[in-house]
């Protein structure tokens, strides 16, 4: 966490109040290397002199737009970017993401959410993700490092596809993952026609991680939609 909070963040917005408020919110979240700029010029000056880890850019700036600034920053820095916009038009969003922006937020946004996104983006970019060792499902422990299911003394290895499916379900734990999303994760874009194969893989997966595969407690079917991996926190 300390490493994360050490990262230098550049905040560009022409609205003074918003700038100080956002800065305060990030400081409250533990970030202490925060640079603020009111226009493109100041932003470029900061980027040149500091190793910025993440940029938060307003789309509308007095001396140019955020997209142009983003392209300029890209020439000297690979820092991930979150765009803030008051426009909210779909085109702006698409344009920003097409340029390679990592995220996009429409004003007004919740500071909580901004902090969450900043943290997630930093973790993802700088590989600071807390390593998920594995998950305990009932009497089974699944190790993500080895892809082995440990049930008491017995060890069962997951196949590559089973591992991908379980990982995908775990990333969205306690939420429905559509069969389409699962197929996409396992077989890529041309996943059509794999629905039956998916059912076979899910059945095998249940045999490995469920006490009673015919009455699953963790890997549940959501009729008509997909599957859900139920993980209770205390486990």
């Amino acid at each position: 966490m300390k490493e994360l909070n050490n990262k230098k963040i550049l905040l560009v917005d022409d609205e003074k109040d918003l700038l100080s408020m956002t800065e305060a919110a990030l400081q409250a979240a533990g970030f202490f290397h925060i640079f603020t700029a009111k226009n493109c010029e100041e932003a470029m000056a900061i980027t040149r002199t500091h190793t910025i880890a993440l940029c938060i850019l307003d789309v509308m700036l007095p001396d140019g737009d955020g997209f142009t600034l983003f392209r300029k920053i890209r020439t000297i820095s690979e820092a991930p970017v979150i765009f803030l916009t008051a426009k909210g038009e779909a085109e702006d969003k698409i344009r920003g993401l097409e340029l390679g922006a990592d995220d996009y937020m429409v004003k007004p946004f919740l500071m909580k959410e901004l902090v969450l996104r900043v943290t997630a983006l930093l973790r993802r970019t700088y590989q600071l993700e807390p390593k998920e060792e594995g998950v305990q499902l009932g009497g089974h422990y699944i190790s993500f490092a080895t892809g082995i299911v440990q049930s008491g003394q017995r060890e069962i290895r997951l196949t590559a596809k089973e591992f991908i499916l379980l990982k995908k379900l775990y990333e969205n734990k306690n939420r429905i993952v559509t069969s389409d999303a699962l197929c996409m994760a396992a077989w890529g874009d041309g996943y059509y026609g794999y629905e039956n194969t998916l059912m076979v893989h899910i059945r095998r997966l249940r045999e490995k991680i469920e006490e009673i595969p015919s009455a699953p407690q963790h890997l549940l079917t959501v009729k008509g939609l997909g599957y859900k991996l139920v993980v209770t926190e205390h486990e």
Partner: protein
Amino acid sequence: MNKTVLKIFVSFSVMAALISVVLLGINFISFACLQSDTFDVYDRSAKTILSDVSSSLYYEGDRYLLQDETAVPQDSWCILIDQAGAVIWSMNKPEEIPTRYSINDIARMTRWYLEDYPVYVRTEEYGLLVLGFPKDAVGKYDLEFTAQWFDTLPQRIAKIFAGNLLLAVLLAILFGVKVYKRLKELTSGMRDLRNETPVVLEEKGILKELARTINDTSAAISRKNAILAERDSARQNWVAGISHDIRTPLAIVTGNAEAIEQTENIPEQVKQRAGAIVAQSMRIKNLIADLNLMSAIEYDMQPGTKQRVPVCPFMRNILSNIINGGLADSVELIIDLTDEKACVEIDVSLMERAIMNLVHNCITHNPEGCRISVNTYRRNGCVYIVIADDGKGVPAEVLETISDIPKAAHGLGLPMAYKIVAAHGGTMTAKNENGFMVTISLPAAF
């Protein structure tokens, strides 16, 4: 459209041919009825004058006298030639008219002219009466035909008639084709006019006025559309501009309220109030987004980025998101999506919004819970999405005004869904049937 033009062309040609034939007939008959107009020179014909002279002439002593001097009109003259060729009586006789005639002279002049005077003769027992009209008063020509000519006359008349008829029809068709082409141009112009595409027709020929009117109308429509488009885009830009201007201060309000909410060591009541400000600000944010969306749909009527999407995965994704977002236990979703191959051309985020609105509409209208069935199928080149609940249904006025944008932001869900579906070239029908039921039909993409 072309059939209409063809009809006009045919009736026009027939009409033209008919008129020609009728005219031909009238001319033919009048020609046949044509009479000599020489009686127009005087009030009587030459024949009558001669007969009058004859009856008025009497012999007294050794010479002839005219009882009624007016029998011979003023500027004409009359002579009487006896059997020997001598003029034995004359009236108004010009100088150059000889007083003696040989048989040859008589033969030469009887039917024609005497010294350029048109003459008419009448034979009497006592001689030849010759009536002379003024020079150049009458033209004479001779018509002679063989007896055979008269025998074959009916056939020839029929032939000439038929020939003329053919010519008339040919001319009518020739002329008709020209008009036909022109009419075709004009009708295509009218079609363009209806589709409001600019029309510029050549202004010539007999339909020049019509072409000009169409051109003028087209220009007027274009002008009006330009004004409307300008006004619409101005309104949309205004909405977008206002939204932008509201969002920034709202962000500051939200951020500060959020900061207060998270401040430690302040009364719980203050925190709650700050929380309420945040929640309401977020509501305003959603309203602004809706306002923008509605104004964009209303004035553009064209979804931005359409892509080909299979319906079933699209629906599964939305429904999963709705369930993942948290659904009351009293709400049950019954999902039956058929035809995995069915695809539609849609702007995914817009259509997602429409479906979300419809499902949330079911939920909010039935606070004590309901079963919502979602169903897709393909039939006759259309993809159907049916969303129905078993709740209490919606008031009749909501169904009636489903295509109208409400005056308040409240109740925007259904009209917005309606507009989005319409913008995709689809239809949305809503009715109360054991609850509330909405059927969306979209053209299937292949």
